[in-house]
């Protein structure tokens, strides 16, 4: 299958995109004090340089009553304009058009930051924020509309090529469109036509200020996935009304509501790629405007197919381009297999949004740090007599000090987990000669295990991507070699990076001879095969316990997960895996018990303490499977330090954490060689 349609230009009103790939709107948390920053500019510019067809920025707020999260761009302040210019100029340099998404989040917000009542069509509390909003008056509706127009004007002044109205998953306009949140009885409520009135009025007001120079798009939700919400038929009708205004140049789509069904908007790997395709397809059938399809487009072929089957005219590739800024360019050059494929893990992009941190990517240490890396490389390459690298206060900055470039060195990396492989890549990119030694017959370390369970296979692409990069850079990998200090002495590398990961740990309460108590890793690597009644103890609060529980349930075990936490798999909420987990766990009959601390194991009896109440309960399972913190494998590092080698360590062998830490540290250590 060729990717011909993908590379065909398309007109969106006055703007032409050179291909069909859109970097659709998404929050980055790069804003500071309500203003866009240099971080934004560098981030978008990298994607523009990487060949994307169109960029749509994160939302710019249209009104002071709208401040749902801290790092929101306050588009209604004129002070944003210089920042807008910096962004648009950086992007335009690559001849890529950039649109601004403008929005009022309406009732999907809290008054915490704004200290103003939240506005909405009707006093219906959002399930996430649980705050009853103020139903807006007709005068306030006019104010909202004026706010959109004002921000559109700022955007035009700031050099944007178009405006997108976010009317889909988190917006006061959505609030009006949806019968679930619009209970009004005036001209703005009731019939679909009435509910769409505010949208049509905003379109007219915005078009009036931007004239015909800028493109105007509307993002519409195809199924809110909430009770009594709008569904695809409504979306089709709304699109037709939007088209009928004759003032809109394209329609973007999405699915779900950002608060109640966020997990469907930024679907994790449990949900099939292209899952929301029915939405653009149905809309496109009804209207003539170009329609954008979004939702787990990970692959140029997949995108081409969606275009070829007429489901959409443009494809949104958001996380795909967060993970690899050159997604489009690589595909264009026929090197799609060199793409750093997004894992749909949601750990460092979506996940960090929930934690109020700037957007990153588990696989790509450069995401969000484009400017620093650019500077660093330039400085390095120029062999400038630098004494210190760009200082970043946090550990997130690319590196410590820039070493003088004194030619290629022999680097030995021990361990082919994500940390070791990333270190190898970074060092090889610096021109060093890198050799990786791995004990097992295969690369990947714990990631290999993590990806071996149902529906988690895409997590393994992390390793596949790293291996591709290693191959390209000429990194050599030797398998089946368990490294000991003597081997290092024998091979005498110039520098060693230890990335030996972590190993399972037995908690204090497990007796030595308890053979039926095992670690999740033993289940996944096949060294144990539990049966019957199984209790999985979740002290990590991530995929470890839930994955194994599912696997065992599939094998016919009766599984209960217990956790000392308030909920099993606590962090699954952050990566939007929680809802799917619940659906599957229920289907598979997995029991979840919370607030339980294991206290002892005797015979086959497991004692558990309900810590809020102090009551003890017990279980007598056939097997106990532990998802508990592991031990760093650090002896080799210490031995090598003692032996006087130039050595650095990275990843779980420093302190057992997650893959992003392994990758970031690997990159840092590799660059520092």
């Amino acid at each position: 299958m060729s990717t011909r349609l993908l590379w065909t230009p398309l007109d969106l009103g006055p703007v032409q995109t050179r291909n069909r790939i859109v970097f659709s709107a998404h929050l980055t948390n790069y804003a500071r004090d309500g203003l866009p920053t240099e971080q934004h500019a560098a981030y978008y510019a990298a994607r523009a340089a990487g060949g994307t067809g169109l960029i749509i920025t994160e939302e710019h707020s249209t009104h002071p009553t709208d401040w749902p999260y801290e790092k929101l761009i306050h588009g209604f302040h004129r002070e944003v304009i210089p920042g807008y210019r910096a962004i648009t100029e950086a992007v335009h340099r690559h001849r890529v058009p950039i649109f601004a998404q403008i929005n009022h989040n309406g009732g999907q917000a809290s008054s915490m930051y704004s200290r103003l009542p939240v506005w909405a069509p009707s006093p219906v509390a959002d399930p996430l924020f649980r705050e009853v909003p103020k139903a807006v008056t007709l005068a306030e509706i006019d104010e909202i509309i004026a706010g959109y127009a004002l921000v559109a004007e700022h955007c035009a002044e700031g050099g944007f090529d178009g405006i997108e109205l976010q009317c889909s998953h988190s917006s006061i306009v959505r609030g009006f469109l949806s019968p679930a949140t619009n209970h009004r009885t005036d001209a703005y409520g009731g019939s679909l036509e009435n509910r769409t009135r505010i949208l049509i009025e905003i379109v007219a007001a915005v078009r009036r200020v931007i004239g015909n120079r800028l493109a105007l798009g509307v993002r519409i939700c195809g199924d809110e996935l909430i009770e009594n919400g709008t569904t695809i038929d409504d979306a089709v009708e709304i699109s037709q009304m939007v088209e009928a205004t004759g003032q809109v140049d394209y329609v973007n789509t999405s699915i779900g509501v950002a608060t109640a069904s966020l997990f469907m908007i930024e679907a994790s790997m449990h949900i099939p790629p292209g899952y929301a395709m029915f939405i653009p397809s149905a809309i496109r059938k009804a209207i003539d405007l170009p329609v954008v399809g979004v939702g787990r487009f990970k692959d140029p072929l997949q995108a081409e197919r969606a275009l070829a089957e007429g489901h959409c005219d443009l494809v949104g590739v958001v996380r795909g381009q967060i993970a690899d800024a050159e997604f489009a360019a690589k595909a264009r050059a026929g090197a799609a297999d060199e793409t750093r494929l997004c894992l749909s893990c949601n750990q460092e992009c979506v996940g960090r949004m929930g934690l109020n941190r700037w957007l990153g990517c588990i696989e790509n240490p450069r995401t969000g740090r484009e400017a620093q890396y650019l500077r660093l490389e330039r400085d390095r390459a120029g062999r400038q007599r630098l004494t210190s690298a760009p200082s970043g206060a946090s550990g997130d900055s690319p590196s410590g000090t820039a070493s003088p470039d004194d030619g290629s060195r022999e680097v030995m990396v021990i361990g082919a987990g994500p940390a070791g492989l990333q270190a190898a890549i970074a060092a090889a990119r610096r021109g060093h000669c890198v050799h990786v030694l791995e004990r097992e017959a295969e690369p990947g370390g714990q990631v290999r295990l993590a990806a071996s369970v149902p529906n988690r296979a895409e997590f393994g692409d992390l390793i596949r991507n790293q291996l591709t990069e290693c191959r390209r850079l000429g990194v050599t990998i030797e398998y089946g070699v368990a490294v000991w200090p003597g081997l290092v002495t024998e091979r005498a590398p110039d520098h060693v990076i230890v990335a030996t990961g972590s190993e399972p740990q037995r908690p204090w309460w497990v007796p030595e001879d308890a053979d039926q108590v095992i670690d999740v890793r033993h289940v996944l690597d096949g060294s144990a095969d539990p049966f019957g009644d199984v209790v999985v103890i979740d002290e990590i609060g991530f995929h470890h316990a839930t994955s194994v529980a599912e696997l065992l349930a599939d094998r016919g075990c009766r599984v209960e997960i217990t956790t000392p936490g308030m909920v099993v798999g606590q962090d699954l909420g952050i990566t939007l895996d929680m809802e799917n987990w619940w659906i599957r766990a229920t289907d598979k009959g997995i029991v979840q018990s919370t607030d339980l601390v294991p206290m002892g194991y005797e015979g086959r009896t497991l004692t558990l303490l309900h810590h809020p109440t102090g009551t003890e309960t017990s279980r007598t399972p056939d097997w106990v499977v532990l998802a508990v913190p592991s031990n760093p494998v650090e002896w080799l590092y210490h031995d090598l330090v003692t032996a006087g080698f130039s050595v650095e360590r990275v990843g779980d062998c420093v302190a057992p954490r997650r893959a992003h830490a392994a990758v970031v540290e690997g990159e840092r250590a590799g660059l520092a060689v």
Partner: protein
Amino acid sequence: MTPSMLAVIPVRDGLVPAGGDETIAECGGRAILIGSQTAAAEVCTGIVEVHLVEAGSFEPGRWARGLLEVLGREIADTTVLVVPGSPDGRDLGPRLAACLDRPLLAGAISITAERVVVVRAGGAEVHTHLVHEPVVATLQPGVRGLEQHLEPTIAAERATGSHRLDAGDAGEARDRVRRDARVLEVLEPDLATIDLSEAPRIIGGGAGLDGPERFETLVEISEHLGAALGATRVITDRGWIDHAKQIGTTGVTVDPDLYISFGVSGAVQHTAGLGSPDYIISVNTDPHCPMMQLSDLAIVSDANAVVDHLHRLLNLGEHDG
């Protein structure tokens, strides 16, 4: 003439061709089925009006002329006659157009009684033709899809009328020219070349297989079992077999009765294109991978050795590889 559409579907031995159902759906359920055993033909979309014309074996010239004789009124009253762009349809369409002296709009992707949209310039352009005068159009199979896949209806049960054309034109044979080629026999699908999407039995190979020669062995096995060969993306990426054989979201969507997988892990991107086989056998070293979970018979074993043994058991000769 009020704008109207009518599908003309060439049928062989009761078989509706590729794109036939789509064509009928495009015409709102109005159709003529012409060919052999039309009464037995099964239609998987709504039928409003269907005329059966028993016409013997495929002879496009004679069919076109004959249709005018038996259904001249219906045809004359129809603005847009739509023929599926299947091999027979592509042959019949121009003959029909020539007989009727109507323009032909071939290779359409969308047809209504008012406008016909055709693809041109090797797929770079679409041309919209407004229907000012009666036309014949051919609809590309597969571009439309069906709203819902209905249980097949036997055409005869809904037939508005039945007609018969003289099958042979023995008289003509001795004439100065024979005006149609004669069908000697229809050969059943050659599984090596069949479109995977149409194959009733499929063997799928995945990354568990260790080399391209394994696939050569598999080709022989699948031929013997009357199955077509497919593969996962990993394999097509490696170039061991053609991309057209890739099953999954970015490959072909298949729907076989029988699926046998060797060394396939069963990633969603693969299984999403698998349809719903009646029976699945998988051979894999990992009993827990999703493909094995999906299987009716999951065999834990080295797929490479199993392939070789199968080859031997089927007496397909020693394979050096």
